[in-house]
């Protein structure tokens, strides 16, 4: 199998699997007062310290969650609610139009069911948040805004955002800034303290850890209303018995991904560059989407004119090549990418995309297999696209 979908999920690191298995053999609820409970607690706190150290946060700023979607929802809704409760004038949430659905749909929900005002920030044709638009928004409505959220790096097109700049602008106005850094950790340098964000999302399964474990880094002074009520395990912001084994494995993976970041960027980045040039040689009219320079090292995202992404995916899948159209699907139906649409692409181009994402297990062999299979797949998908004139 040729696995080119590391941005969807990447294989667990052997060390993380080992740490998981080791911890899973032990019994102990980290909230229990007896010896096994204390042992579990100690394991969790060590993990917290390791995650904090790797990401430039204080241990007390690490809130373990059930993954990226939960962290994003907690940050967006929780910070919005807390801030609005403090200051009812602040009823606006500001988000980039290219956010992952875990952020975008949470923002949309606040608009629909909580009466929040929503500002979506435009992105340019490379998928980069328009800093001038953020500046304008802040100048206009500084006193109305409860929180701002913009991802560190885009999961579809790979564009890295000017997060530090955005965080600084938000901080000037005293507005909490959240960033979804799920795709960035281990790929580009990520430092919570240095970037100036109030909150930052991480998840295990994109960096070699387990699925269903993540963290929200949340500044000590940042108010956040809980989504999950119960035992109050995580700073009273997040309840639920802690997943000791998952958290341990997550910490190992974060630590290793961050330690290897430079080496990954160099090795995977070179492989990705090779992939891009081989794809463009094989399919000369393929368009590389996203920022050509400032992008995740593992990400290559193309539009193939005249093709539908899901047809290409089927054809490559039949050849043992796993990749993604890059966009979300609903009930298995690929939707035109909202990211591409926000970048100004038309619907045909937004449906014609494939994302190839590389990671720690990728090799040159993967690139060779793809380059060999792609031309005939594209030719066939084009034929299928032309019999389907109805939708172009």
């Amino acid at each position: 199998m040729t696995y080119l979908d590391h941005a969807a999920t990447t294989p667990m690191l052997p060390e993380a699997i080992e740490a998981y298995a080791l911890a899973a053999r032990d019994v102990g609820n980290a909230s229990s007062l007896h010896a096994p409970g204390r042992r579990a607690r100690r394991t969790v706190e060590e993990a917290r310290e390791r995650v904090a150290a790797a990401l430039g946060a204080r241990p007390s700023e690490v809130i373990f969650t059930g993954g990226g979607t939960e962290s994003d929802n907690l940050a967006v809704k929780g910070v919005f609610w807390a801030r609005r409760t403090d200051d009812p004038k602040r009823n606006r949430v500001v988000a980039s139009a290219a956010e992952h659905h875990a952020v975008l749909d949470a923002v949309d929900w606040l608009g629909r069911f909580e009466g929040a005002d929503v500002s979506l920030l435009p992105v340019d044709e490379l998928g980069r948040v328009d800093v001038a638009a953020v500046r304008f928004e802040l100048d206009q409505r500084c006193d109305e805004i409860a929180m701002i959220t913009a991802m560190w790096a885009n999961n579809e097109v790979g564009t890295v955002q000017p997060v530090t700049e955005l965080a600084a602008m938000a901080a000037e106005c005293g507005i909490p800034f959240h960033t979804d850094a799920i795709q960035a950790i281990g790929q580009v340098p990520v430092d919570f303290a240095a970037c100036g964000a109030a909150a930052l999302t991480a998840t295990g399964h994109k960096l070699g850890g387990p699925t269903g474990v993540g963290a929200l880094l949340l500044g000590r002074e940042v108010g956040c209303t809980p989504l999950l009520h119960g035992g109050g395990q995580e700073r009273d912001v997040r309840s639920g018995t802690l997943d000791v084994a998952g958290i341990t494995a997550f910490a190992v993976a974060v630590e290793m991904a961050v330690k290897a970041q430079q080496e990954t960027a160099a090795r995977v980045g070179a492989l990705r560059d090779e992939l891009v040039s081989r794809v463009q040689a094989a399919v000369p009219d393929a368009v590389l989407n996203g920022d050509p320079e400032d992008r995740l090292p593992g990400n290559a995202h193309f539009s193939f004119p005249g093709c539908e992404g899901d047809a290409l995916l089927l054809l490559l899948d039949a050849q043992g090549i796993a990749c993604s159209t890059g966009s979300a699907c609903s009930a298995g139906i690929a939707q035109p990418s909202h990211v591409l649409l926000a970048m100004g692409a038309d619907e045909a181009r937004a449906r014609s995309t494939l994302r190839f994402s590389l990671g720690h297990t990728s090799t040159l062999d993967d690139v060779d297999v793809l380059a060999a299979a792609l031309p005939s797949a594209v030719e066939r998908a084009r034929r299928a696209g032309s019999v389907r004139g109805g939708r172009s």
Partner: protein
Amino acid sequence: MRSRARGTRVLAAMSGGVDSAVAAARAVDAGYDVTGVHLALARNPQTYRSGARGCCTLEDARDARRAADVIGIPFYVWDMADEFHASVVDDFVAEYAAGRTPNPCLRCNEKIKFAAVLDRAIALGFDAVVTGHHARLGPDGLLRRSVDMGKDQSYVLAVLTREQLAHSIFPLGDSFKTGVRAEAAERGLAVAEKPDSHDICFIADGDTRGFLAKRLGEAPGDIVDAASGDVVGSHAGAFGFTVGQRKGLNLTRPSADGRPRYVLSITPVTNTVTVGPGEALEVSTVAAERPVWTAGSLPSTPTECEVQIRAHGETVPAVVTVADGQMTATLRWPVRGVAAGQALVAYRPDPAGDIVLGSATVSLTRS
């Protein structure tokens, strides 16, 4: 189906029901390289029939995916909602508005499953489409009725051309439905006990008149007795009645002779539904448009055959001629309840299964 099977790439259309799941599994057993596809036909899947009865719900998509997993084949969902609405739903509404009685399953086979889907499949390198229809299609390229006469679906496949049939595989034609269910259970397919789908998949509650009224608007009018010309009732819209219909007329005046009355004709321009006695429904000649000769090229001489003029209807011996883009059937004896818009399907009786000769859409009837 074995001869050309090995390694041939085929696409199995999987509705989420038991038939298409077993059909896909049999295609795998026969050596085909099978990929499963569920067709998403609803613009908003929640609005279509939910649960076990339809072909277009999220639950059906899940059932289809689960069956594909068990069979061990790749599976995708293809969004055919736009094509389905343009070719099947809009056509359905327009046909009723014109006073005809369409068969949407037949239209879906003609325009979607063996056209839009087949074309896309072939472009993508597949050789054929596999479906769970109950009909036989052998190496001779002839379409025959299923061995299970109670489940036979050759009527709704009779619109297919030889070219379309050359790229179609129906693995269930030699099986009885009970056997298909038993086989599904043996194969561990959870859809084994799923009830058969009936009615029309895009009408969520089975209320065809309500569905049409929402799209065409209520249009109250008269129900008129054919013999006396008297108004004997009223209706909320001439659409949605079918020639031969007896129930649901709510006539306010009984007939003079006390015998039941049936819908004889629907006249959209005057918004009138005409009713009369059963004998008045009898027709001996049926004219039909857009002929397709499934068994080869259109015949130039009159053809002795049997014709079926509605889904699940009886057959009647007839002579069929095709000329000037029209098919005419002269029936050996009169039959009742022939509605414009239905398919006229010609069969040749055959010990190995009655053979579909061809079909056309009923346009005009004469007594």
